[in-house]
């Protein structure tokens, strides 16, 4: 589904973070991306989302060159990117509102889907309900908790029915029950609908729980990266098994060997 070919990227005036880097991700994959801070985890999501452009090389998603955001890719950033002056419901609807603003032009919005306003409302309300925040629909982001903001951002993305979901540190700063709740939610979504997801994290346990494959980035320039297989991902019971702890240890060692 994703093909990164000979990617080179650097922020202006800084050494490259990726050089001649290639990666393939299959459809239906669940990929954790881990590495020390400054290793380019978030940058990789920006590049895949099409909001940053490579210096050289190319990124294809579904055989289409990514030169701008792709309507069916969903991106949830660490600080949620909610508009503070809009209510939870307005925020959750923002993606569909923007689609409506452009019409189904195939560039900003998918060409194959034209939602009338009432359908968009319904779809947003359904996601708010599924994520358990429909009671907060008229509140503003400053009035709700971090976890609730995270859910709002997820609802906004899921309302656009993405086939690729990219999340940056989605579970950091959430309390344990909220975190497990959201983790289950995303894993179930992935299992039920063949959703491909990429989760950026610095947390070893999150990486092992969520990633069928775990991509390890390093500080400095990434040319070749290591990928760990992790077939038992996704099951909450897995957390309490020895294999889980063993996997975490392996990953910890691998990360340690890179710095």
């Amino acid at each position, binding site marked *: 589904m994703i093909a990164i070919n000979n990617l080179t990227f650097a922020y202006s005036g800084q050494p490259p973070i990726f050089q001649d880097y290639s990666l393939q991700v299959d459809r239906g994959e669940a990929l954790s991306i881990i590495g020390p801070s400054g290793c380019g985890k978030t940058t990789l999501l*920006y590049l895949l*989302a*099409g*909001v940053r452009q490579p210096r050289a090389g190319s990124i294809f998603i579904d055989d289409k060159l990514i030169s701008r*955001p792709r*309507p069916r*890719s*969903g*991106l949830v*950033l*660490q*600080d*949620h*990117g909610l*508009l*503070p*002056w*809009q209510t939870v419901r307005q925020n959750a609807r*923002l*993606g569909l*509102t*923007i*689609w409506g*603003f*452009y019409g189904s032009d195939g*560039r*900003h*919005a998918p060409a194959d889907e034209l939602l009338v306003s009432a359908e968009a409302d319904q779809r947003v309300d359904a996601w708010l309900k599924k994520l358990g925040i429909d009671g907060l629909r*008229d*509140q*503003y*982001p*400053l*009035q709700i908790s971090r976890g609730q903001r995270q859910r709002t*951002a997820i609802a*906004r993305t899921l309302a*656009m029915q993405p086939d690729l979901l990219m999340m940056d540190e989605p579970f950091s700063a959430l309390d344990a029950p909220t975190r497990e709740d959201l983790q289950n939610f995303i894993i179930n979504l992935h299992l039920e609908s063949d959703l491909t997801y990429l989760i950026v994290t610095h947390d070893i346990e999150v990486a092992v729980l969520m990633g069928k494959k775990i991509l390890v980035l390093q500080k400095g320039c990434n040319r070749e990266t290591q990928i760990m297989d992790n077939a038992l991902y996704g099951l909450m019971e897995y957390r309490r098994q020895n294999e889980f702890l063993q996997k975490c240890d392996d990953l910890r060692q691998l990360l340690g060997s890179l710095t």
Partner: protein
Amino acid sequence: MSRRLNARAALIGLLMFFAIWQALAWIIHRPIMPSPLQVLPIFGVSLFGNLGVHFLASSARVLAAIGLAVITAVPIGLGLGQIPRINRIFAPLIAIVYPIPKIVFLPVIYVLMGITDISKIFLIALIIFFQILVVVRDEAANLHPELILSVQSLGAGRRALFRYVYFPASLPAVLTALRVSVGTAIAVLFIAEQSLTTYGLGYYIVVETYQVLRYPEMYAGILAMSLLGLVLYFVIYNLELKVNRYRTEEPN
């Protein structure tokens, strides 16, 4: 922006205002300081006659100037705020021009633009323009880059970003700048209306009443000008409260 001014507080303020005025009228006891009891009936009657026409003329000029300033300053401010490279070029120029009292350009504007209403509107718009330009620019520059990226990832191009992010983000600052500059705008209007027109409160106060010693009528004009400032101030203030609702921590 702490509290909404309620009706009771407004009434108390008005009563104090007229009480002090009445006291001054008794103390000074000269024609230049008539009692509000003499002025208010004249004000009430002439606001629906001759004075009303001047009031409308002044209001129209201020509103046109506000409109002109907003539709030019907001896009330019957003542009400068979004594109640091261009902002760096113009920032020193704006810093120098911003504090110049724009009224000194009055003669230049009259000569260049003629003595029609357009030159008066332009002068007032110039004052408001710089106030709005600066706040919109700074507001757009201070927006979190992650917020922009995140909305871009939803498919927003430049037009949608303007409509859903930049414009609503700068709206509170635009209103604050307007509220602060509307007093200066009306002061300049007062001066600009004293010549080269036969309509407007400035003309009414200075030429039609003051120069022919009709002091009570002059005070009716002063009241009308105060009313203009007051109404504009509170309309903007209430809009500000409305667009700032989201900043309150309490659910509403």
